[in-house]
């Protein structure tokens, strides 16, 4: 079955790598895949997204508003920003830890992510909120946020592969030095819900 997946967050959170892993794991199962992401100037502290499509008869990686099966939000406000893309019965997985924009510090802004999470909870039926920062701390590395988000997404059942299958992909494509740590993060995320 075709899936439309949207990953979003802020530059530097590992969104592009996560999207690559989903693509590689899909390809390992002979499922065609396309993706498109933010590249260039906007990456510098800006909003970053990755559109990903899996399945048959794909023409382009982007999709219309109201058609995403799954949104993986690495940051609360970014998940809200991309929410128009979600299907009526789509799933959202969101990290509750906010990232302050520079402009917020300049204007003495008070953004803290809380009202974004409240909004998501009020407007999305299938929602999974996790504190990515806390999970990372538990695992002992701030660099595994993307694995935590990926593990949670697999648990939601919206991705066309299993935890073991993604581990296999991670083993093949990511630096072996971090294999154990990444697996730990994936397992930890699975236990969350």
């Amino acid at each position: 079955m075709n899936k439309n997946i949207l990953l979003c967050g802020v530059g530097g959170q590992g969104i592009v790598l996560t999207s690559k892993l989903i693509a590689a794991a899909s390809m390992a199962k002979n499922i065609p895949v396309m993706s498109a992401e933010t590249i260039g100037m906007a990456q510098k502290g800006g909003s970053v997204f990755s559109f990903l499509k899996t399945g048959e008869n794909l023409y382009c990686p982007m999709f219309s508003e109201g058609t995403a099966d799954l949104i993986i939000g690495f940051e609360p406000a970014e998940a809200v920003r991309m929410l128009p893309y979600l299907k009526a019965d789509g799933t959202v997985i969101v990290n509750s830890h906010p990232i302050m924009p520079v402009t917020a510090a300049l204007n003495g802004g008070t953004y803290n992510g809380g009202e974004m999470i409240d909004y998501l909870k009020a407007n999305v039926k299938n929602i999974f909120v996790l504190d990515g920062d806390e999970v990372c701390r538990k695992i002992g590395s701030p660099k595994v946020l993307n694995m935590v988000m990926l593990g949670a997404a697999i648990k939601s059942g919206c991705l066309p592969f299993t935890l073991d299958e993604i581990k296999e992909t991670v083993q093949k494509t990511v630096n072996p030095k971090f294999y154990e740590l990444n697996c730990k993060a994936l397992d930890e995320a699975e236990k969350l819900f």
Partner: protein
Amino acid sequence: MHTEFLMGNAAIAMGAVAAGLNLISGYPGTPSTEVLETTAKKNTGNIYVEWSVNEKAALELAAGAAYSGARTMVTMKQVGLNVASDPLMSLAYVGVKGGMVIMVADDPGPISSQTEQDTRHFAAFSKLPCFDPSSVQEAYDMIGDAFEYSEKYHTPVLFRPTTRVCHGYASINVKDIEEYLVNTPEGFIKDSSKWVIFPRLSYNNHIKIEQRNEELSDVFSQYDKNIIIPATDNSCKKGIATHGISYSYVMEALSGQNAPRIMKVATPFPFPEKLAVEFLSGLDEVLCIEELDPVIEKELTYICGKYGLSVKIRGKLTHDVKPAGENSCKSVSENLSAFSGLVPTKSVERATPPQLPVRPPVLCAGCPHRASFFAVKEAMKGKKTAFCGDIGCYTLGNAMPLDMVDTCLCMGAGVNITQGIGKIEPDTTCFAFVGDSTFFASAITGVVNAVYNQADMTLIVLDNSTTAMTGHQPHPGTGRTMMGEIVEKVDIEAVLHGIGVKTVETVNPLELSKAVDCVKRVSSEKGVKAIIFRSPCAVLIKPSTPVIVDENKCVQCKKCINSLGCPGIVLEEGKVCIEQSLCTGCGLCKQVCPTKAIMGGERDE
């Protein structure tokens, strides 16, 4: 054949390598950069790869190699072709021996460019054949075709993808190494009647070019990537003409629905006229869905006139499609529903979201450009100044609170613009800021102009030893080439001295008070003088330990935030603190804080 998950630009590179590429050159520019980089990575060992000093140099190099029978490709973004347009226009008359593909990436939006120019016009203007791929797979396949046509017709050809094709990823079918073509160049054979452009040759070749393009129009009408897809319902009198990524949006929107007749134009020049006539016949109305300029729309309108067809051609010129910006799945499905009653996907009704934080792009934490801009700002406080900026990461110096870019036009322009301002307002202290890569690409002639014409200005070279904006490509000042050689660096100081700039000072901008003094001293001299702010790009060096704020000393004056705007300095519950995951320990904020409340960073140890 096997399947690989590739970025469009990587697919273009792999397609070219499979077509027997011998040489590739280019100048970095989003969204074109990854083509050359991928070629360097996938180099079979037989390909010469070079980042040239600018697009003009790159195109001329590729032309020379193609004169020698090599298969060559030159890569750039759309505004790069403006720089390379001089050799392009003449080369079109002279032609080539080996296949030569000029890969120019257009950027509808624009997403990361100064203009929304359409390279399809450059194709018609220079009379060169042009290929316009609609997907990653097609880009891979088409690049091989481009080489074939180029070689067969002895002409360079343009290959024009747009951002969404360049940067889209797809699992596509690619050739195995055993299937790659190998091209062995014959070498350059002297023939001045062929390779030396003279008015007589241009006249004769102009006639041949017009004949060739008429022939190509027919050939392209048979080309398997220019296609007509029949309507689902035969009696439908409407048609859609489209191209590139917009074709994919159209197909996506129409899948599972009643579709009108569709024409996809893969070669906008020479336009496949016969195919277009076949497409138009029997139709009442056609909607052209294009990005950038209404090229297909004008061609079809012309063809209707020429053949006396009474088909109403609609699109941008009739205000049915928006005139600027990129198309999207959404905009195309709205165009289609207005034109042919397609049912668009409904958006989901949800409550209005809370106000979202804006995230404009900013200079990275620890970026030395921030220090450079701040030093000049401090030194020039209260003076009448002009700060002429240029193209690169440092364009972001325009953002608050730095606000240090008064003008930005195109590569290298700031050096000359600041001279112009100075000639009209001599009481203004005039600065030009230029990055190291931009300096080599197109600012040196501007400095020569300033010295010769007695300008009064200060050139600031922001030397971070890389081409950071496009992803850290080497350039003449870095001492590395794309072939992996370590070479002698072209020395910016020596270049400036050689031109006749007498005062050239080099200073580390992160040593703030020294930098401020240097700006005060140098800018007060008459004539053309230069400061080189030298400090490596923050992304390329190992960060120092992050700084911290001593809560007992901090008086919450917020001077650090309000003068620097470093993303590493944040407010937590109203109090200034340092985001440890971002701070590189550059130490700039320490030097700005009036109470010395910021501590740490490696420099202390």
